[in-house]
Protein backbone atom coordinates (compact mmCIF):
# COMPACT_ATOMS: atom_id res chain seq x y z
CA UNK A 1 0.00 0.00 0.00
CA UNK A 2 2.77 2.36 0.99
CA UNK A 3 4.79 1.62 -2.14
CA UNK A 4 1.63 2.09 -4.24
CA UNK A 5 0.89 5.52 -2.76
CA UNK A 6 4.53 6.60 -2.97
CA UNK A 7 4.54 5.54 -6.63
CA UNK A 8 1.43 7.66 -7.24
CA UNK A 9 3.01 10.66 -5.50
CA UNK A 10 6.22 10.31 -7.52
CA UNK A 11 4.23 9.87 -10.73
CA UNK A 12 2.24 13.03 -10.02
CA UNK A 13 5.43 14.89 -9.08
CA UNK A 14 7.15 13.86 -12.33
CA UNK A 15 4.07 14.67 -14.42
CA UNK A 16 3.75 18.12 -12.85
CA UNK A 17 7.49 18.67 -13.42
CA UNK A 18 7.07 17.92 -17.15
CA UNK A 19 4.05 20.24 -17.23
CA UNK A 20 5.83 23.11 -15.47
CA UNK A 21 8.92 22.61 -17.67
CA UNK A 22 6.77 22.99 -20.78
CA UNK A 23 4.96 26.05 -19.41
CA UNK A 24 8.25 27.72 -18.44
CA UNK A 25 9.85 26.76 -21.75
CA UNK A 26 6.86 28.05 -23.73
CA UNK A 27 6.84 31.38 -21.89
CA UNK A 28 10.54 31.81 -22.67
CA UNK A 29 10.62 30.59 -26.27
CA UNK A 30 7.00 31.33 -27.40
CA UNK A 31 7.42 28.29 -29.60
CA UNK A 32 3.68 27.58 -29.99
CA UNK A 33 2.00 30.57 -28.33
CA UNK A 34 2.90 33.11 -31.03
CA UNK A 35 1.72 30.79 -33.82
CA UNK A 36 -1.58 30.10 -32.07
CA UNK A 37 -2.38 33.73 -31.24
CA UNK A 38 -1.34 35.07 -34.64
CA UNK A 39 -3.44 32.42 -36.37
CA UNK A 40 -6.55 33.35 -34.36
CA UNK A 41 -6.15 37.08 -35.04
CA UNK A 42 -5.37 36.63 -38.75
CA UNK A 43 -8.26 34.21 -39.37
CA UNK A 44 -10.76 36.39 -37.53
CA UNK A 45 -9.64 39.42 -39.54
CA UNK A 46 -10.14 37.51 -42.81
CA UNK A 47 -13.62 36.37 -41.71
CA UNK A 48 -14.58 39.94 -40.82
CA UNK A 49 -13.36 41.18 -44.23
CA UNK A 50 -15.21 38.36 -45.99
CA UNK A 51 -18.48 39.06 -44.17
CA UNK A 52 -18.17 42.76 -44.92
CA UNK A 53 -20.76 43.70 -42.29
CA UNK A 54 -23.36 41.21 -43.55
CA UNK A 55 -25.19 39.04 -41.00
CA UNK A 56 -24.52 35.34 -41.56
CA UNK A 57 -26.71 32.58 -40.09
CA UNK A 58 -26.08 31.21 -36.59
CA UNK A 59 -25.42 27.71 -38.00
CA UNK A 60 -22.72 29.08 -40.25
CA UNK A 61 -21.08 31.16 -37.52
CA UNK A 62 -20.96 28.16 -35.11
CA UNK A 63 -19.12 26.18 -37.79
CA UNK A 64 -16.76 29.09 -38.50
CA UNK A 65 -15.87 29.38 -34.79
CA UNK A 66 -14.79 25.74 -34.72
CA UNK A 67 -12.93 26.11 -38.02
CA UNK A 68 -10.85 28.83 -36.34
CA UNK A 69 -10.27 26.64 -33.28
CA UNK A 70 -9.41 23.55 -35.37
CA UNK A 71 -6.86 25.28 -37.60
CA UNK A 72 -5.29 27.33 -34.81
CA UNK A 73 -4.88 24.06 -32.92
CA UNK A 74 -3.25 22.55 -35.97
CA UNK A 75 -0.82 25.47 -36.23
CA UNK A 76 0.46 25.22 -32.68
CA UNK A 77 -0.35 21.98 -30.91
CA UNK A 78 2.15 19.79 -32.75
CA UNK A 79 4.99 21.85 -31.25
CA UNK A 80 4.83 20.09 -27.88
CA UNK A 81 6.55 17.00 -29.29
CA UNK A 82 8.05 18.43 -32.48
CA UNK A 83 10.13 20.91 -30.44
CA UNK A 84 11.55 18.05 -28.33
CA UNK A 85 12.33 16.09 -31.49
CA UNK A 86 13.90 19.05 -33.32
CA UNK A 87 16.02 20.07 -30.34
CA UNK A 88 17.08 16.47 -29.72
CA UNK A 89 15.82 16.46 -26.12
CA UNK A 90 13.65 13.37 -26.61
CA UNK A 91 16.47 11.10 -25.44
CA UNK A 92 17.00 13.30 -22.37
CA UNK A 93 13.34 12.86 -21.38
CA UNK A 94 13.41 9.14 -22.22
CA UNK A 95 16.31 8.71 -19.81
CA UNK A 96 14.63 10.70 -17.05
CA UNK A 97 11.20 9.25 -16.67
CA UNK A 98 8.61 6.72 -17.80
CA UNK A 99 6.50 7.44 -20.92
CA UNK A 100 3.18 7.93 -19.09
CA UNK A 101 4.49 10.94 -17.14
CA UNK A 102 5.68 12.57 -20.37
CA UNK A 103 2.31 11.92 -22.04
CA UNK A 104 0.19 13.31 -19.22
CA UNK A 105 2.56 16.24 -18.60
CA UNK A 106 2.29 17.18 -22.28
CA UNK A 107 -1.48 16.59 -22.25
CA UNK A 108 -2.00 19.01 -19.34
CA UNK A 109 0.27 21.53 -21.02
CA UNK A 110 -1.64 21.26 -24.32
CA UNK A 111 -4.93 21.59 -22.46
CA UNK A 112 -3.80 24.78 -20.71
CA UNK A 113 -2.36 26.25 -23.92
CA UNK A 114 -5.47 25.35 -25.93
CA UNK A 115 -7.79 26.70 -23.20
CA UNK A 116 -5.99 30.05 -23.31
CA UNK A 117 -6.13 30.24 -27.10
CA UNK A 118 -9.77 29.13 -27.24
CA UNK A 119 -10.69 31.70 -24.62
CA UNK A 120 -9.05 34.38 -26.76
CA UNK A 121 -10.85 33.10 -29.88
CA UNK A 122 -14.23 33.05 -28.11
CA UNK A 123 -13.86 36.51 -26.56
CA UNK A 124 -12.80 38.05 -29.89
CA UNK A 125 -15.55 36.16 -31.71
CA UNK A 126 -18.27 37.30 -29.30
CA UNK A 127 -17.06 40.90 -29.49
CA UNK A 128 -16.45 41.13 -33.24
CA UNK A 129 -19.19 38.93 -34.72
CA UNK A 130 -22.35 40.85 -33.91
CA UNK A 131 -24.99 38.20 -34.66
CA UNK A 132 -23.23 35.44 -32.66
CA UNK A 133 -25.10 35.53 -29.36
CA UNK A 134 -24.92 32.72 -26.80
CA UNK A 135 -28.40 32.29 -25.31
CA UNK A 136 -27.63 29.24 -23.11
CA UNK A 137 -24.23 29.95 -21.55
CA UNK A 138 -24.23 26.67 -19.56
CA UNK A 139 -24.27 24.58 -22.76
CA UNK A 140 -21.68 26.82 -24.37
CA UNK A 141 -19.26 26.60 -21.43
CA UNK A 142 -19.61 22.81 -21.02
CA UNK A 143 -19.25 22.18 -24.78
CA UNK A 144 -16.21 24.45 -24.98
CA UNK A 145 -14.58 22.82 -21.95
CA UNK A 146 -15.20 19.24 -23.09
CA UNK A 147 -14.33 20.13 -26.69
CA UNK A 148 -11.02 21.62 -25.55
CA UNK A 149 -10.28 18.53 -23.45
CA UNK A 150 -11.01 16.22 -26.39
CA UNK A 151 -8.98 18.36 -28.79
CA UNK A 152 -6.02 18.47 -26.40
CA UNK A 153 -6.10 14.71 -25.84
CA UNK A 154 -6.33 13.76 -29.52
CA UNK A 155 -3.78 16.39 -30.57
CA UNK A 156 -1.24 15.22 -27.97
CA UNK A 157 -1.01 11.66 -29.28
CA UNK A 158 -1.15 12.79 -32.93
CA UNK A 159 1.66 15.27 -32.21
CA UNK A 160 3.73 12.46 -30.68
CA UNK A 161 3.18 10.32 -33.79
CA UNK A 162 3.93 13.00 -36.38
CA UNK A 163 7.02 14.22 -34.48
CA UNK A 164 8.73 11.06 -35.78
CA UNK A 165 7.72 11.76 -39.40
CA UNK A 166 9.60 13.79 -42.01
CA UNK A 167 6.61 15.78 -43.28
CA UNK A 168 5.42 17.08 -39.94
CA UNK A 169 3.61 20.26 -41.09
CA UNK A 170 1.31 18.67 -43.66
CA UNK A 171 0.77 15.38 -41.86
CA UNK A 172 -0.68 16.93 -38.70
CA UNK A 173 -4.00 18.31 -40.04
CA UNK A 174 -4.36 15.37 -42.44
CA UNK A 175 -3.98 12.79 -39.67
CA UNK A 176 -6.02 14.85 -37.20
CA UNK A 177 -9.07 15.43 -39.37
CA UNK A 178 -10.58 11.90 -39.36
CA UNK A 179 -9.79 11.46 -35.66
CA UNK A 180 -11.28 14.83 -34.74
CA UNK A 181 -14.32 14.65 -37.05
CA UNK A 182 -16.71 13.08 -34.47
CA UNK A 183 -15.57 15.66 -31.92
CA UNK A 184 -15.98 18.60 -34.33
CA UNK A 185 -19.47 17.54 -35.45
CA UNK A 186 -20.56 17.19 -31.82
CA UNK A 187 -19.14 20.50 -30.61
CA UNK A 188 -20.65 22.35 -33.58
CA UNK A 189 -24.06 20.84 -32.72
CA UNK A 190 -23.59 21.74 -29.04
CA UNK A 191 -22.55 25.30 -29.87
CA UNK A 192 -25.58 25.67 -32.15
CA UNK A 193 -27.88 24.54 -29.32
CA UNK A 194 -26.33 27.17 -27.02
CA UNK A 195 -26.83 29.87 -29.66
CA UNK A 196 -30.44 28.80 -30.31
CA UNK A 197 -31.21 29.03 -26.58
CA UNK A 198 -32.07 25.34 -26.11
CA UNK A 199 -32.44 24.06 -22.53
CA UNK A 200 -29.44 22.20 -21.09
CA UNK A 201 -31.27 18.85 -21.15
CA UNK A 202 -31.35 19.00 -24.96
CA UNK A 203 -27.56 19.08 -25.05
CA UNK A 204 -27.09 16.03 -22.81
CA UNK A 205 -26.48 13.74 -25.77
CA UNK A 206 -23.66 15.99 -27.00
CA UNK A 207 -22.18 16.15 -23.50
CA UNK A 208 -22.22 12.35 -23.23
CA UNK A 209 -20.52 11.97 -26.60
CA UNK A 210 -17.84 14.52 -25.67
CA UNK A 211 -17.14 12.86 -22.30
CA UNK A 212 -16.94 9.43 -23.98
CA UNK A 213 -14.68 10.79 -26.72
CA UNK A 214 -12.26 12.25 -24.17
CA UNK A 215 -12.16 9.08 -22.07
CA UNK A 216 -11.69 6.75 -25.06
CA UNK A 217 -9.05 8.90 -26.79
CA UNK A 218 -7.10 9.44 -23.56
CA UNK A 219 -7.17 5.73 -22.66
CA UNK A 220 -6.12 4.62 -26.16
CA UNK A 221 -3.41 7.31 -26.28
CA UNK A 222 -2.04 6.16 -22.91
CA UNK A 223 -1.80 2.57 -24.18
CA UNK A 224 -0.32 3.60 -27.52
CA UNK A 225 2.16 6.15 -26.23
CA UNK A 226 4.76 3.62 -25.00
CA UNK A 227 5.20 2.35 -28.57
CA UNK A 228 5.25 5.84 -30.08
CA UNK A 229 7.68 7.23 -27.53
CA UNK A 230 10.31 4.48 -27.73
CA UNK A 231 12.20 3.95 -30.97
Amino acid at each position, binding site marked *: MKSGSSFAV*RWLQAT*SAIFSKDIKSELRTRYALNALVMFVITTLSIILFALGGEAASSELMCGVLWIIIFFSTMSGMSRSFVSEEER*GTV*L*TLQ*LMTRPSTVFFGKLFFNFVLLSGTNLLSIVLYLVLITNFVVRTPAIFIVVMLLGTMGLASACTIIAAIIAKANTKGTLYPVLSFPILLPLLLTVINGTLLSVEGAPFTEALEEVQILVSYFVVITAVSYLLFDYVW*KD
Partner: protein
Amino acid sequence: MTTFVLDGRGLKKQFNRRTIFHDLDLRLASHEALAIVGRNGSGKSTLSKIIAGVLSLSGGEVTLARNGERIREEAQLEHVGFVAPYLQMYGEFSAWEHLVLFRKIRGATASDEELAALLLRVGLLGRKDHEVRVYSSGMKQRLKYACALLHRPHLLILDEPMSNLDHEGVEMVLALMQEQLATGMLVVSTNEERDTQFCGKTIDLNVFSDREGRAR
Protein backbone atom coordinates in the same frame (compact mmCIF):
# COMPACT_ATOMS: atom_id res chain seq x y z
CA MET B 1 25.49 -4.75 0.95
CA THR B 2 23.51 -4.17 -2.25
CA THR B 3 24.86 -5.72 -5.43
CA PHE B 4 23.67 -5.04 -8.94
CA VAL B 5 24.07 -7.27 -11.97
CA LEU B 6 23.54 -6.25 -15.58
CA ASP B 7 22.80 -9.20 -17.80
CA GLY B 8 22.31 -9.22 -21.57
CA ARG B 9 21.66 -12.41 -23.53
CA GLY B 10 21.39 -13.04 -27.27
CA LEU B 11 21.23 -9.34 -28.01
CA LYS B 12 20.31 -8.51 -31.58
CA LYS B 13 19.64 -5.17 -33.20
CA GLN B 14 18.43 -4.52 -36.73
CA PHE B 15 17.66 -1.25 -38.46
CA ASN B 16 15.30 -2.15 -41.30
CA ARG B 17 17.10 -5.12 -42.91
CA ARG B 18 20.56 -4.21 -41.69
CA THR B 19 21.78 -6.22 -38.74
CA ILE B 20 24.02 -4.15 -36.47
CA PHE B 21 24.93 -7.03 -34.14
CA HIS B 22 23.50 -10.34 -33.03
CA ASP B 23 24.18 -13.15 -30.54
CA LEU B 24 25.81 -10.64 -28.21
CA ASP B 25 26.03 -11.55 -24.53
CA LEU B 26 27.22 -9.35 -21.69
CA ARG B 27 27.39 -9.56 -17.92
CA LEU B 28 28.49 -6.90 -15.50
CA ALA B 29 28.37 -6.81 -11.71
CA SER B 30 28.94 -4.04 -9.16
CA HIS B 31 32.50 -2.63 -9.16
CA GLU B 32 33.05 -3.79 -12.75
CA ALA B 33 33.53 -1.71 -15.87
CA LEU B 34 32.76 -2.65 -19.44
CA ALA B 35 34.30 -1.05 -22.53
CA ILE B 36 32.36 -1.08 -25.81
CA VAL B 37 34.71 -0.56 -28.73
CA GLY B 38 34.38 -0.79 -32.50
CA ARG B 39 34.78 1.20 -35.67
CA ASN B 40 32.41 4.03 -36.63
CA GLY B 41 28.95 2.68 -37.36
CA SER B 42 29.57 -0.62 -35.59
CA GLY B 43 26.76 0.10 -33.10
CA LYS B 44 28.51 1.43 -29.98
CA SER B 45 25.93 4.14 -29.32
CA THR B 46 23.12 1.76 -30.26
CA LEU B 47 24.31 -0.79 -27.70
CA SER B 48 24.77 1.96 -25.09
CA LYS B 49 21.17 3.12 -25.59
CA ILE B 50 19.91 -0.47 -25.43
CA ILE B 51 21.71 -1.01 -22.12
CA ALA B 52 20.23 2.28 -20.86
CA GLY B 53 16.77 0.94 -21.75
CA VAL B 54 15.80 3.68 -24.21
CA LEU B 55 16.16 1.69 -27.43
CA SER B 56 14.28 -1.51 -28.13
CA LEU B 57 15.99 -4.73 -29.16
CA SER B 58 15.27 -6.85 -32.23
CA GLY B 59 16.09 -9.95 -30.19
CA GLY B 60 17.33 -11.01 -26.74
CA GLU B 61 16.92 -9.05 -23.53
CA VAL B 62 18.84 -6.90 -21.08
CA THR B 63 18.01 -7.14 -17.39
CA LEU B 64 19.20 -5.31 -14.33
CA ALA B 65 18.98 -7.15 -11.01
CA ARG B 66 19.41 -5.95 -7.44
CA ASN B 67 20.47 -8.61 -4.93
CA GLY B 68 19.42 -11.27 -7.43
CA GLU B 69 15.96 -9.78 -7.91
CA ARG B 70 15.14 -8.48 -11.37
CA ILE B 71 14.24 -4.78 -11.51
CA ARG B 72 11.11 -4.03 -13.55
CA GLU B 73 11.88 -2.48 -16.95
CA GLU B 74 10.12 0.82 -16.20
CA ALA B 75 11.99 1.16 -12.87
CA GLN B 76 15.44 0.59 -14.40
CA LEU B 77 15.80 4.27 -15.34
CA GLU B 78 16.07 5.13 -11.64
CA HIS B 79 19.39 3.27 -11.54
CA VAL B 80 20.90 4.48 -14.80
CA GLY B 81 22.97 7.58 -15.56
CA PHE B 82 23.83 8.37 -19.17
CA VAL B 83 26.23 10.83 -20.79
CA ALA B 84 26.67 11.19 -24.56
CA PRO B 85 27.58 13.96 -26.99
CA TYR B 86 24.20 13.56 -28.76
CA LEU B 87 22.28 14.03 -25.52
CA GLN B 88 20.78 17.53 -25.59
CA MET B 89 19.91 19.94 -22.80
CA TYR B 90 17.30 22.71 -22.86
CA GLY B 91 18.94 25.91 -24.14
CA GLU B 92 16.42 28.20 -22.45
CA PHE B 93 17.14 26.82 -18.95
CA SER B 94 20.18 27.40 -16.75
CA ALA B 95 22.33 24.61 -15.31
CA TRP B 96 20.70 25.11 -11.91
CA GLU B 97 17.20 24.93 -13.42
CA HIS B 98 18.17 21.70 -15.20
CA LEU B 99 19.24 20.06 -11.96
CA VAL B 100 16.16 21.24 -10.06
CA LEU B 101 13.89 20.08 -12.90
CA PHE B 102 15.55 16.69 -13.26
CA ARG B 103 15.54 16.20 -9.48
CA LYS B 104 11.76 16.68 -9.51
CA ILE B 105 11.19 14.48 -12.58
CA ARG B 106 13.32 11.69 -11.14
CA GLY B 107 11.96 12.09 -7.62
CA ALA B 108 15.57 12.29 -6.41
CA THR B 109 16.32 13.29 -2.84
CA ALA B 110 19.41 15.45 -3.45
CA SER B 111 19.35 18.69 -1.44
CA ASP B 112 20.14 22.14 -2.88
CA GLU B 113 23.56 21.93 -1.20
CA GLU B 114 24.22 18.62 -2.96
CA LEU B 115 23.19 20.11 -6.29
CA ALA B 116 25.59 23.00 -5.70
CA ALA B 117 28.34 20.54 -4.79
CA LEU B 118 27.66 18.63 -7.99
CA LEU B 119 27.95 21.80 -10.08
CA LEU B 120 31.15 22.71 -8.23
CA ARG B 121 32.49 19.25 -9.01
CA VAL B 122 31.89 19.64 -12.75
CA GLY B 123 33.18 23.23 -12.70
CA LEU B 124 29.91 25.01 -13.48
CA LEU B 125 28.96 26.54 -10.13
CA GLY B 126 30.12 30.01 -11.21
CA ARG B 127 27.92 29.86 -14.32
CA LYS B 128 24.98 28.03 -12.78
CA ASP B 129 22.43 30.76 -13.53
CA HIS B 130 23.43 31.31 -17.16
CA GLU B 131 21.22 29.87 -19.88
CA VAL B 132 22.66 26.71 -21.41
CA ARG B 133 22.33 28.20 -24.91
CA VAL B 134 25.34 30.42 -24.15
CA TYR B 135 27.46 27.52 -22.85
CA SER B 136 30.35 26.14 -24.86
CA SER B 137 30.11 22.51 -26.01
CA GLY B 138 32.55 21.50 -23.23
CA MET B 139 30.40 23.20 -20.58
CA LYS B 140 27.32 21.42 -21.92
CA GLN B 141 29.19 18.12 -21.64
CA ARG B 142 30.05 18.94 -18.02
CA LEU B 143 26.39 19.71 -17.30
CA LYS B 144 25.43 16.30 -18.69
CA TYR B 145 27.69 14.70 -16.06
CA ALA B 146 25.99 16.69 -13.29
CA CYS B 147 22.56 15.62 -14.57
CA ALA B 148 23.63 11.97 -14.92
CA LEU B 149 25.03 11.81 -11.37
CA LEU B 150 22.14 13.67 -9.72
CA HIS B 151 20.37 10.50 -8.56
CA ARG B 152 23.55 8.54 -7.74
CA PRO B 153 23.05 5.86 -10.44
CA HIS B 154 24.27 2.31 -9.92
CA LEU B 155 24.92 1.97 -13.63
CA LEU B 156 26.73 4.84 -15.35
CA ILE B 157 26.88 4.66 -19.14
CA LEU B 158 29.32 6.97 -20.90
CA ASP B 159 29.28 7.22 -24.69
CA GLU B 160 32.38 9.05 -25.98
CA PRO B 161 32.96 10.36 -22.42
CA MET B 162 35.64 12.93 -23.20
CA SER B 163 33.85 14.67 -26.08
CA ASN B 164 34.55 18.41 -26.14
CA LEU B 165 36.30 18.34 -22.76
CA ASP B 166 39.54 20.16 -21.98
CA HIS B 167 42.42 18.60 -20.03
CA GLU B 168 40.87 19.53 -16.69
CA GLY B 169 37.55 18.06 -17.81
CA VAL B 170 39.22 14.81 -18.84
CA GLU B 171 40.85 14.52 -15.41
CA MET B 172 37.49 15.16 -13.77
CA VAL B 173 35.82 12.39 -15.79
CA LEU B 174 38.62 9.91 -15.02
CA ALA B 175 38.15 10.63 -11.31
CA LEU B 176 34.37 10.22 -11.67
CA MET B 177 34.91 6.86 -13.37
CA GLN B 178 36.99 5.63 -10.43
CA GLU B 179 34.36 6.84 -7.96
CA GLN B 180 31.62 5.12 -9.92
CA LEU B 181 33.54 1.85 -9.84
CA ALA B 182 33.79 2.07 -6.05
CA THR B 183 30.00 2.13 -5.75
CA GLY B 184 28.46 0.71 -8.92
CA MET B 185 28.95 -0.31 -12.54
CA LEU B 186 30.45 1.55 -15.45
CA VAL B 187 29.95 1.14 -19.21
CA VAL B 188 32.22 3.16 -21.49
CA SER B 189 31.65 3.32 -25.23
CA THR B 190 34.71 4.69 -26.99
CA ASN B 191 37.70 4.05 -29.21
CA GLU B 192 40.15 5.94 -27.00
CA GLU B 193 42.43 3.71 -24.90
CA ARG B 194 42.65 6.40 -22.22
CA ASP B 195 38.88 6.16 -21.65
CA THR B 196 38.89 2.39 -21.11
CA GLN B 197 41.75 2.22 -18.59
CA PHE B 198 39.44 1.15 -15.75
CA CYS B 199 37.51 -1.39 -17.81
CA GLY B 200 38.15 -5.03 -16.99
CA LYS B 201 35.78 -6.28 -19.70
CA THR B 202 35.56 -5.37 -23.37
CA ILE B 203 33.03 -5.93 -26.13
CA ASP B 204 34.55 -5.40 -29.56
CA LEU B 205 31.64 -4.79 -31.91
CA ASN B 206 33.89 -5.31 -34.94
CA VAL B 207 33.70 -9.00 -34.06
CA PHE B 208 29.95 -8.94 -34.53
CA SER B 209 29.80 -7.37 -37.98
CA ASP B 210 31.79 -7.66 -41.20
CA ARG B 211 32.98 -4.78 -43.36
CA GLU B 212 29.75 -4.75 -45.39
CA GLY B 213 27.93 -4.12 -42.16
CA ARG B 214 26.26 -7.53 -41.97
CA ALA B 215 26.41 -9.62 -38.86
CA ARG B 216 28.62 -12.67 -38.95
